[in-house]
């Protein structure tokens, strides 16, 4: 089923079955559906239900409390598409943020502070940059702003690491500042820190990038602080 052209659609309780497999039947060849919905409108509300075949998201969506029993995650078909999932499969707290080629999930095992939630950023394709915006914060036009973030990776070397960045911004009078996590050892928490001194008040952005040449890299992050002194 394709829903496109900015259609406004509410699906209260969906049940989708992909079929029984691929092969040749008496009415010709048959095959499983590759996707359950081609989600090509930003105005779709999916309020519950179950599918055993993933959804093809071409437009940004927020979906809560929907069950996907497919072995694969939902497919993101557009680099600009954002998928926000909450209470996946009816499990409280099971959320995920998916983009094309990467995803972000809450992490309760590998944490810097032994409570609450850390975040796991995973790359699945080197063709896309895994950059997650951490904060957009109002700052004064004097004093040094410092952004700190703890990161954790599972490998050594320079193929997979976290990169904390304050992008350059002419409205604040700042140039780009970055710090990478290549000095952090595998399976160890390592603190990244970036500082800038705005000359005008305004909105400062901070972001984390998972730099990865493997198409399968992972970095965890936790305990961000932003101060201005």
């Amino acid at each position, binding site marked *: 089923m394709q829903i496109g052209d900015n259609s406004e659609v509410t699906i209260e309780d969906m049940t989708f079955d992909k079929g029984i497999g691929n092969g040749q039947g008496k009415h010709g060849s048959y095959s499983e559906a590759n996707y359950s919905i081609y989600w090509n409108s930003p105005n779709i509300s999916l309020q519950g239900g179950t599918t055993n075949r993933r959804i093809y998201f071409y437009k940004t969506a927020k979906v809560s409390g929907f069950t996907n029993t497919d072995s*694969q995650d939902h497919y993101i078909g557009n680099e600009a598409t954002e998928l926000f999932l909450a209470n996946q499969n009816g*499990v409280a707290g099971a959320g995920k943020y998916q983009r094309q080629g990467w995803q972000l999930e809450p992490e309760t095992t590998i944490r810097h502070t032994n409570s609450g939630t850390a975040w796991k950023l995973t790359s699945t394709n080197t063709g896309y940059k895994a950059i997650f915006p951490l904060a957009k914060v109002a700052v004064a036009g004097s004093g040094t702003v410092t952004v700190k973030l703890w990161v954790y990776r599972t490998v050594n070397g320079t193929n997979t690491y976290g990169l904390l960045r304050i992008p350059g911004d002419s409205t604040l009078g700042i140039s780009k500042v970055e710090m990478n996590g290549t000095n952090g050892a595998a399976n160890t928490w390592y603190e990244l820190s970036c500082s800038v001194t705005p000359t005008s008040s305004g909105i400062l952005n901070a972001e984390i990038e998972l730099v990865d040449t493997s*198409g399968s890299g992972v970095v965890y992050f936790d305990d961000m602080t932003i101060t201005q002194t």
Partner: protein
Amino acid sequence: MATYELLSTRINNLGQVEYHLSLDSNESVLLHYPTAQSQETLDSECDGIVALKAAEAEKQAKIDKAIAEALWTDEERANLG
């Protein structure tokens, strides 16, 4: 059937067994199941994913070609068609 490198296995936050497999040197896939699966099952799933990607790339190439040809000028149509 090809064999795909298993990068990691864990229980995800849905309580499923999640396998992270490398499709090639640039791309990987996360697969999850209610119970543990054999390498053969995972390889078969990855074969299907790779085949689907190839089919979709072929389809997209045809769409791109048709669009490009639809936008040809008369001169281009006479010389390229």
